C-alpha cells in the first residue's frame, strides 16, 4: 500500500475492493465448476483485468491476461492428452494457477491502488475497532516491504556466492529468515515512530481527509459479488 496517492482517479471504494477480493478468492478457489458457475467464473476472472485497464496499469493487465490464458490453455488442451505423472503435474500446476491467480491479482490491485489513509477511512466507516483496523492496515502496508526485503537479501546472498545455503537446506532457513526479520523489525520500529508522531492511537477521534463513498460503479461491483456468493452457496450445499 502506498502512503500517498499519485493519481486521484481511483474508481472504486476500498470497501468494494475488499469485497471483490474476498468474493474472487472464495468463489474461484472454493467453488466447483459446471452449471451456472460456467458464467460466474469467467466474469470474476475478468474483473481484475478490467480494473487494471481502467487504472492504466497496462503491464499488470498484460501479465495477468497472458498468465491466465497459459494456465487455462494448459488445462484445456494438455490435460486430456497426457496420462500418469505428466498429467498429474500439469493438472496440479495449471489448476492451482488458474484458481489462485485472479485472487492474487485482485489482492495486488487492492494493495497497490489504495492508500493507507483511504484504507483507514474505510475501516472506520465499517465501524471496525481500532484494535483490528490498525494491525490490518499495517499488515497490508507491510506485505510489499517483506517481499522487497526478501529480494534484497537474496541479492546480497548471491553476491557473496551463497546459494541454497551452500548445499545445506537446513542452514538456508537461518540464512534467509534471520536477516529478513532483523530488517523487518527495524523498519517496523521506524514505521511505528512515524505513525505515532502523526497521531495514530491518540485518545481523540481522528479525522480523515480522504473522500470515500459508494458510487454507481461500487453498487454494480457489489451486486456481482452478492450474486456470485449466493450461487457459490447454492452450489456448495446443493440447495436446488
Amino acid at each position: 500500500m502506498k502512503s500517498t496517492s499519485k493519481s486521484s482517479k481511483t474508481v472504486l471504494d476500498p470497501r468494494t475492493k475488499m469485497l471483490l477480493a474476498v468474493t474472487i478468492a472464495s468463489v474461484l478457489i472454493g467453488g466447483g465448476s459446471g452449471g451456472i458457475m460456467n458464467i460466474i467464473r469467467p466474469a470474476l476472472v475478468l474483473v481484475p483485468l478490467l480494473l487494471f485497464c481502467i487504472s492504466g496499469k497496462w503491464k499488470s493487465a498484460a501479465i495477468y491476461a497472458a498468465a491466465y490464458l497459459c494456465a487455462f490453455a494448459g488445462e484445456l488442451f494438455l490435460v486430456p492428452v497426457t496420462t500418469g505423472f505428466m498429467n498429474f503435474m500439469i493438472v496440479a500446476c495449471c489448476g492451482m494457477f488458474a484458481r489462485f491467480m485472479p485472487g492474487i491479482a485482485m489482492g495486488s490491485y487492492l494493495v497497490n491502488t489504495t492508500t493507507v489513509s483511504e484504507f483507514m477511512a474505510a475501516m472506520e466507516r465499517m465501524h471496525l475497532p481500532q484494535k483490528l483496523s490498525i494491525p490490518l492496515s499495517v499488515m497490508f502496508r507491510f506485505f510489499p516491504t517483506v517481499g522487497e526485503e526478501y529480494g534484497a537479501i537474496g541479492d546480497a546472498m548471491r553476491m557473496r556466492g551463497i546459494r541454497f545455503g551452500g548445499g545445506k537446506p537446513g542452514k538456508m532457513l537461518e540464512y534467509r529468515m534471520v536477516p529478513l526479520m532483523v530488517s523487518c523489525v527495524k523498519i517496523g520500529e521506524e514505521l511505528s515512530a512515524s505513525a505515532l508522531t502523526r497521531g495514530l492511537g491518540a485518545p481523540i477521534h481522528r479525522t480523515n481527509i480522504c473522500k470515500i463513498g459508494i458510487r454507481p460503479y461500487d453498487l454494480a461491483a457489489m451486486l456481482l459479488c452478492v450474486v456470485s456468493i449466493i450461487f457459490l452457496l447454492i452450489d456448495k450445499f446443493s440447495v436446488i
Partner: protein
Amino acid sequence: MKQRIQAKDLINVGIFTAIMFVVCMGVAMLGYIPIFIPLLSVLVPLVGGIPFMLFLTKVKKFGMVTIMSILIGILIGLMGMGVWVIVIAPVSGILADFIFKSGGYASAKKSILGYGVFSIWVIGNFIPIVVTRDNYFDMLISGYGREYAETLMRYIPDWSLIPLLAACFISGLLGAILGRALLKKHFERAGIV
C-alpha cells in the same frame, strides 16, 4: 499490572502478522505435491516458530496474540481454506494468550508451551478434508483433476485428524525451541531483542 494495548503494540502485531503470513504461505506452496499436505502440519509450525518467538519478545500485554490469531485465521480462511480455520485460530490464540500471561510473557517454558497451543490453528486447514470429505473431494476433482484428489484423499484418511493435531502441537513445541535458539544466537547479539 493492567496495561492497555497501545498503538505501538498494534503496529507490532500488524508487522509480525505480515511476516508470519508470508512465511506460512511460502511453506504452504509445497502443497503442490500431495504428500506434502499432511507434512504441512509439521512444517508450518516449525518454521513459524522463528518469527513468533521474536514477536513474543515484543508482547507484554494480554490480547496481542489473540489479535494476531484472528487476523491469521481470516487471511488463511480467505485464501480458500474454508471457515473452520477462521473459527479455530482465535480459539487457539486466546488459549495461548492465557498461557503466556500466566508466565508473565517472560517464562521460557510457558512460551514454548504457548506456541504449541497457538500452532493448533493449522489443524483448521485439515478439518474440511475430513468432515466434509465428499464435498471437498468434488471440489478437488473439478479443480485439480481426479488423480490429485484421489492421492490426497489416500494420504489423509478419516482417523488422521488426531495424529495431525498432535503433529501440530509437537512441531509447535519444536518450532518454539528452534526459534528461541535462533533468538539467542542472532537477535540478542544484534541488539534487536
